[in-house]
């Protein structure tokens, strides 16, 4: 079986992954708790960032409204 380092190197390489590569990655993650934990930490970042972005919803729609008004005006009145 591949070591944790080999798994990371494979994922970081420009090589196109074949069926065998994909299988050995799956196998490694299914038995290696440490690699899984690192992956879960990465997923946690995505999840938390999504939530934080959602909290900015009001300023996002306000900003979008400003853009819409000025753009529509600018590009239909020429």
């Amino acid at each position, binding site marked *: 079986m591949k*070591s*944790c*380092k*080999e798994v*990371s*190197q494979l*994922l*970081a*390489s*420009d*090589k*196109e*992954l074949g069926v065998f590569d994909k299988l050995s990655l799956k196998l490694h993650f299914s038995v290696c708790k*440490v*690699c899984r*934990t*690192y992956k*879960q*930490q*990465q*997923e*946690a*970042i*995505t*999840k*938390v*960032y*999504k939530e*934080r*972005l959602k909290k*900015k919803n009001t*300023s*996002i*729609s*306000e*900003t*979008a409204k*400003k*853009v*819409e008004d*000025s*753009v*529509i005006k600018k*590009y*239909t009145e*020429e």
Partner: protein
Amino acid sequence: MANSNKTNFSSPEFLNKLKDRDHDAVESLVKTYSSHLVNASFGLGLNESDAQELVQNVWGTFFQNIQNFEGRSHIRIYLFGILYNKAKELYRERNKHTSDIDLNTYFEDKFDDTGHWALTPKKPEEFIESIQTSGIIESCLNKLPEKQRMAFYLKEIDGASTEEVCNVLKVSATNLRVILFRTKAKLRDCVERKMQA
């Protein structure tokens, strides 16, 4: 990328109306995609005024080049391609410093001689708790090169398909996998470092 359009924005009829600056056509397109583009700008780490400026510039470029747009790529992809280029320009102007990881040293530091991880990572629950409140993720995201930040936003946050992201960034699927691997590894490292500081 959520698709909320009722009008077929890629039809030749619609494109002709846009080229004639038909009010209804311009309005429906701008209203469909502005919040999507602003959301992406915030997701890339911009504040309100920068996001507003950026998205206005995206529309500016779009309408300047509308005569040449032949509808070969989906309008949504086309707009995000412009956003990507404009965001790169903006960061260049601001002289933001970004850096990529050196994969050789990355692998040396992380693993022991037997190829196992050198350190035991925090449990995901504890990890989540420490990143919840502070602006750690934002400041780490801001250090990423534009391509990595855009790939991360589109694939992980927006939920765009691999094909769409590849189209916006002009990279292959294998390329994108590598970009995302590096981005996520680097983000995690940065967040961990800041948590301990």
